[in-house]
């Protein structure tokens, strides 16, 4: 179980592969569920050229660890990986990766879905967008639909 914050761009597919190689899961898992959130170049019908992601470092680390522990209590996960970007982000850059490994698909899928919703609603990150008309803090997240 690993969670960390990255101040630089990361490749989620390499991260998944590296984690899987290093985690010692061998062939125990039958399911890997992933969610990758990336930066769109538009929001509210307006072009967005860049984004800055701020966070509350000590609380963020603690909260991501707490989410992973709770997911593991709720579902029979073999492993879990969360990576979240901070700092300057460009369109198409990955922002968040969640990967869950389990013996069977339902646990991995449900845990992955639960983790991204919990993270989006509670983890202390804030996005500021750069648009043609200036910078703007996002006031709320999308509703997940």
């Amino acid at each position, binding site marked *: 179980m690993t969670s960390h914050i990255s101040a630089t761009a990361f490749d989620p597919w390499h991260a998944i592969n590296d984690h899987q190689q290093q985690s010692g899961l061998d062939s125990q898992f039958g399911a890997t569920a992933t969610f990758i959130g990336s930066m769109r170049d538009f929001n509210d019908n307006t072009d967005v050229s860049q984004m800055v992601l701020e966070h509350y470092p000590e*609380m963020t680390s603690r909260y991501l660890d707490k989410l992973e522990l709770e997911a593991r209590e709720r579902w029979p996960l073999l492993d879990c990986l969360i990576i979240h970007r901070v700092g300057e982000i460009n369109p198409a850059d990955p922002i968040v990766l969640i990967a869950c490994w389990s013996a069977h698909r339902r646990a991995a899928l449900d845990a992955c879905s639960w983790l991204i919703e919990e993270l989006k609603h509670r983890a*202390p990150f*804030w996005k*500021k967008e750069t648009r043609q008309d200036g910078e703007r*803090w996002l006031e709320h*997240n999308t509703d997940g639909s």
Partner: protein
Amino acid sequence: MSIQVKFFASLRDKIGISDTTVDSATTAGEAWDIATDKAERPVNVLVAINLDYAQFDSPINDGDEVAFFPPVTGG
């Protein structure tokens, strides 16, 4: 008594303070009032005490860290 008070994101920009220290406060709400000179509190402000979500009427103690921030928008 020393309470560290932090503000984040749009709330920091609005209040104009990143972090400060207050000498006496018994609740998070009192810490807000002292740190901001009783600035009006936006309705959606969230509070954390020692890195856990809390309420404005939650008690605070010497050495605590109180943070105020807007709704989160990560992920």
